[in-house]
């Protein structure tokens, strides 16, 4: 079961199963969100030091239909060490990282060869491929202090378990 996961996944899984760590993920309250995309901008700034919302790991979609408009989002749900993306990675570059309190998906860039199988494996469409970046983009919770949460003017972004 754990063969495709990184070596440090086993203790993490143990911690998760025993309730020591609860994997958290970003969640956007659609009733508060205004679709301003400040979160996307700060995400790209934090990770790539660029003014470029298309490099963000959190995407806000404003969906238009004849009947209504609503704001929805897609962001890594931090499925855990058994995530489909981790399973799909042919080089074992994706792994489940922990910093003691927070567990999140992480990538070993030395191993990543840019097959992007994780992108198609993700059931939430939350791993992205950017035309100018050779590795997948996904949410790493900024190592425990998500910047999008800090910047959201509407207070719509929360960490949920």
């Amino acid at each position: 079961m754990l063969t495709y996961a990184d070596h440090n996944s086993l203790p993490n899984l143990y911690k998760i199963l025993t309730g020591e760590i609860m994997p958290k993920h970003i969640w956007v309250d659609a009733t508060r969100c205004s679709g301003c995309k400040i979160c996307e901008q700060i995400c790209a700034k934090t990770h790539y030091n660029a003014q470029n919302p298309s490099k963000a790991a959190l995407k806000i979609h404003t969906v238009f239909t004849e009947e209504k408009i609503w704001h929805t989002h897609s962001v890594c749900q931090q499925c855990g060490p058994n995530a489909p993306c981790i399973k799909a990675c042919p080089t074992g570059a994706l792994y489940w990282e922990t910093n003691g309190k927070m567990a999140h998906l992480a990538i070993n860039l030395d191993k990543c060869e840019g097959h992007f199988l994780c992108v198609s494996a993700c059931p939430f469409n939350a791993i992205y491929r950017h035309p100018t970046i050779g590795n997948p983009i996904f949410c790493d919770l900024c190592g425990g202090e998500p910047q999008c949460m800090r910047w959201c003017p509407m207070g719509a972004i929360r960490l949920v378990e």
Partner: protein
Amino acid sequence: MGELKGGWVGKILRVDLSKGNIKEQEVSKELAYEWIGGRGWGVKILWDELEAGTEPLSPDNKIVIATGPLTGTIVPSSGKVVVAAKSPLTGGYGDGNIGTHLGHMLKMSGYDAIIIEGASKKPVYLWITPNGVEIKDASHLWGKNTIETEIILRRDHGNDIGAIVIGPGAENLVKFSVVISEYGRAGGRPGIGTVMGHKKLKAVVAQGWNDIPMVDIDAAYELAYEARRYLMSNPGYRKWIEQGTMMTVEWSQEAGVLPTHNFTDGEFEEYMSIGGETMAKTYKMLRKGCFSCPMPCGNLSIARFGKFERTWAELDYENVGMLGSNIGIGSMDAVIKLNRLADEWGVDTISLGSVIAFAIELYQRGIISKKQTGGLELKWSDPDTAIQLAEMIIKGEAIGKLLAEGVKKAAEKIGGEAPKYAIHVKGLEVSAYDCHAAPAMALSYGTSPIGAHHKDAWVISWEMKYGREKVDKAKVDKVIEFQRIRGGLFEILTVCRLPWIELALDLEYYPKLFKAITGLDYALDRFYFIADKIYNLMRAFWIREFGHWKREYDYPPRKWFEVPISKGMLAGRKLSKEDYDRLLDMYYEARGWDKNGVPRKSTLEKFGLTDVIAVLEKAGIKLSE
């Protein structure tokens, strides 16, 4: 990119629709440093490239779609774009700004601005990405309303796009057509949509993924965060995000400036039912913000009762004032329906409200007859009449064909008493502030460089505090100050003015952000100097088109001078022509223009507009020293 280090991405796209040519050109240092962007580029490019007397609806007219150095960045409320062209409604300079995702998408695909020339024979739309620019066939979109069009574009190109589109109004060359983005955002009141319709350009769509260069990105983000926190600590913030501009309805009623029955009454009994409180409590279903905006004002509202149930639209004060109280409609559901129709058809809500009210008033006064209206009885407070009339305007039936020209031309054609009831300046319909007893706001409408619009100098709130009776230099100074800031600074940086006007954001943030992003150290005074230069060039543009200038062109609507307010606390009040003339004289003096409103030679020289002097003198216009 040459000398430009950040803010501007450095390229302008030039599209010739007649030949199907697509060219790129570098942003020159002069254009960037001296004209900044947005409105500055709009007027500069149109002045340089258009011949005097260009027919607005001909392939010779050009559209400039311009962003500014701060557009599409983390700067609060920076999701704006300026669209400019020679106006088919007024015959002079026309521009408008629109809150849209096209701003950052255009810059991320590598262009600061687009210049559209010529006219296509068949419907097309522009598809812009960093991989290239295509002129694509739009025959499947032609005839569709703006909402259907945008849904199809998002289906074809993915949801992550920025687009401005036109509707059937612009296709039928209704003179006050606008461009629409994201269902409810409109821009380009002086018929910029009509120019696009004439060029058979259905939409401009961009998707970008390149970085926008910034000199000091860390400083810019820190400043933006600080500015954001400042905004959100304002006690008015909560009310603003609940009601947005809609809270002005109640304020206007109290101040006696709510336009009612074609600017007759100054107050409206049913204002509560179309007010901001009612909207926020009963009708609002979602907040919608422009790109990068921490104080979203988009009130997506849904009709709850009656036959318009489940219709939704994005409400704003101007829309509600003009399509509600101005035609006597006190039902929010009906206003939502009318607003939605205007957005679907891509016509300006302000002008639509004004022409409908104008037609109803003429009918009520017996100036036009049932024969002219095609058998339709026009009466106040009747949503069905308003909707039918609006449909006639879009389709060009009966009197609708006349009204589609805007109130000025319609009044001239009807003749007789009609021009007295046409509420416009320079041909552009007045937006929703009744200035029978507000001389400074009247001056602001009179001297606005695109015709009567509130975006340049919205002094009315200040004027109410200062004293509406007074006629003095302070009012003129305030109008000029607001024109510098709102019509200058914000329009050239192409960011939204609302953080400053509504939540008192310190203006000093803008030079600081400008420095962090572009690396250029400009003081506010330098922006004001550029703003004044732009106002002079816009005035020169009008003079070049008309071949002369009269101070009557800078007068507010005749009705404010001649027909007093009929009821309420301001009953009997009207604007004094003498007072207005005094204000106008002071305004001209402060601007360095002569008695007729023509810039003096010394003024133009001060701003380095020597080529303007040569062009105007060649056209036989006498400039005083």
